[in-house]
């Protein structure tokens, strides 16, 4: 079982990203669950979403307390308390930031792998708005290999219709541009 | 015409869902015991204008084939509206004999 926690702000598409990843896993004939910690949805407010992935049927329906992977769609969220809570030892962190991974070692001391990508820049240049979720998905797929990048393309086409190509390009660019740092902990 | 007392049906015989499946079931309802007084139409004064027929809330005024207006006492509750409505004072309310 692989458990992922997504941190975003309302409007960035963290919930959608969690769903897209689960849908891609299911398309590859494995099992996944995507859900969010729903609250009063407001643009800009911090948002939590979760994806649970497994090779066998997932029975568990509680929240995720000890994620294997933490994805942060907005580096400013790193200053908030609790962003690294519960990360498993040698866990993975994927961040949207212009800074290198080494800058985040103090925030995620237990991380075995920290990856950064400037998803905001990619989103603004490709889409024209700072919706960073599909770019960060590309980076996440590169870092973890959870699904094939081609599968993501398929899901974007089903889900975004006329915006599919832009999202495909964003994910693929982030897939290439992500910087990964492995750490011995 | 006198309404016969219908025996109450058990739950298996009653129509499903608390419904009435036949039209006009209210004609079986005998209201004659409700009256304290009853309308008497003076056929000599009656001009056959039909006001009593229009105003009767129970539809208890009927028109005979020969054109005369009469009260169907099974349905008349003795409210006296026909008496008030009659333009020529051809209807008077008479106390019901007990």
């Amino acid at each position, binding site marked *: 079982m692989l458990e992922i926690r997504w941190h975003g702000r309302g409007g960035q598409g963290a919930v959608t990203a969690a769903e897209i990843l689960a849908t891609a896993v299911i398309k590859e004939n494995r099992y996944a*669950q995507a859900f969010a910690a729903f609250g009063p949805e407001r643009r800009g407010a911090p948002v939590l979403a979760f994806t649970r992935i497994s090779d066998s049927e997932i029975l*568990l329906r509680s929240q995720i307390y000890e994620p294997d992977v933490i994805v942060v769609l907005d580096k400013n969220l790193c200053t908030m308390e609790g962003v690294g809570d519960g990360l498993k030892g040698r866990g993975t962190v994927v961040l949207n930031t212009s800074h290198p991974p080494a800058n985040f070692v103090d925030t995620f001391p237990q991380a075995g792998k920290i990856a950064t990508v400037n998803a905001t820049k990619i989103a603004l240049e490709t889409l024209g708005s700072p919706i960073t979720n599909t770019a960060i998905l590309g980076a996440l797929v590169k870092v973890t290999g959870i699904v094939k990048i081609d599968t993501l393309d398929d899901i974007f086409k089903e889900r975004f219709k006329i915006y599919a190509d832009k999202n495909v390009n964003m994910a693929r660019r982030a897939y290439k541009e992500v910087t990964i740092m492995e750490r011995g902990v | 015409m006198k309404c016969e007392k219908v025996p109450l049906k058990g*739950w298996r015989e009653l129509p499903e*869902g*608390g419904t009435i499946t036949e039209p006009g079931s209210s004609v079986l309802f005998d209201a004659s015991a409700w009256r304290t007084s009853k309308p008497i139409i003076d056929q000599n004064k009656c001009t056959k204008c039909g006001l009593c027929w229009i105003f009767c809330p129970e539809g208890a005024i009927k028109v005979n084939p020969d054109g005369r207006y009469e009260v169907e006492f099974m349905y008349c509750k003795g409210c006296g509206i026909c008496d008030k409505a009659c333009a020529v004072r051809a209807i008077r309310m008479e106390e019901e004999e007990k």
Partner: protein
Amino acid sequence: MKKIGLSGNYAVAHAVKMADVDVVAAYPITPQTTIVEKLSEFVANGELDADYINVESEHSAMSACIGASMTGARVFTATSSQGLAFMHEVLFIAAALRTPMVMANVNRALSAPLNIWNDHADAMAERDSGWIQLWVSSAQEAYDTTLMAFKMTEETRLPVMVNLDGYILSHTYEPVELIEEETVRKYIPSKPLVNRLSPKTSFSVGVVGPPEYYFEMKYQAIDAIERSRSTISKITTEFNRSFERSYDDIGTYGMDDAEYALLTMGSMTGSARVVAEEWRRKGIKAGVISIRTFRPFPVEIFRQKVSGLKGLGVMDRSSTPGGPSNPLFCDVATCLYGLKERPVLQGFVSGLGGRDISLENFRTMFKATMDAADTKSPKPCMYVGLRE
């Protein structure tokens, strides 16, 4: 068949579309769910040929459904929490008038404080309305059960409520295997029901039932839901056979030889099973029972399933303030009262207002159930996860 990723809400919407409903009447604003949002999309796109009636309240939604059902249409609505509560008086009318319809109820807490998250208070408050109440534990089960519900409602002429846990099922994406639309159409052919409101027939509905009649009329509805047990079982068995599923009025895990078990409803079932598996690895014979058909309560089957059990932990996700216990516990205790051999019951309330029931909470409840059984002295209802 290929699985796709769908939320519980969308799984229900797909089932309703495939069932080719004629009328959907729903209030579109909070606490409404994406079930009817998706259905209105299907109607607008021409994928579903139905009258979609946007009404101004849930009270009107249910009233419109009754009227539509009276004309012989296949009818669906969906609601949640306060919306269901607002339907309250009309729910009893739908059941007593014997109007077939299916409603998805996304289980959420009732105010106050205002809360949009999961618990079972909404449905439990409508327990006595005369509706058939089905409860599901996954998006797949929500889809399958909604399909079965149309068959059940049309055969029993009792309205059917399909309950799925708010967010935990309604908004969670997971694998769902959709049946081919053509196959579904064959399974529940769109045959018009009797149009009771046809101008060609004379028919009075919503009549006064004075004391000489009310009791008999009410008893008809009581008798109908009693008799619906066999219809529900028959339809479930047929569905299992046709579509390779394994649903039962009561879901079980490990109950062949279990000594201790948790009784759950809805989405709690999966996590309870994870913990039961944990205990089994430790050599303890643990099991899980989940009630799929809450109304009519499967009394006989339930008694069979718990025979031989030492301890049963009953998990309520709602409460009956001031009552002798909570809704599910009361039913269970009543079922077992007459039996000589019965398990020790330990009651729990947890997960109110969307409070997560963690694996640790489930472990606590299993442990408390074992302790209650072994010492034969259960504690008063335990509120698990409550901060002191």
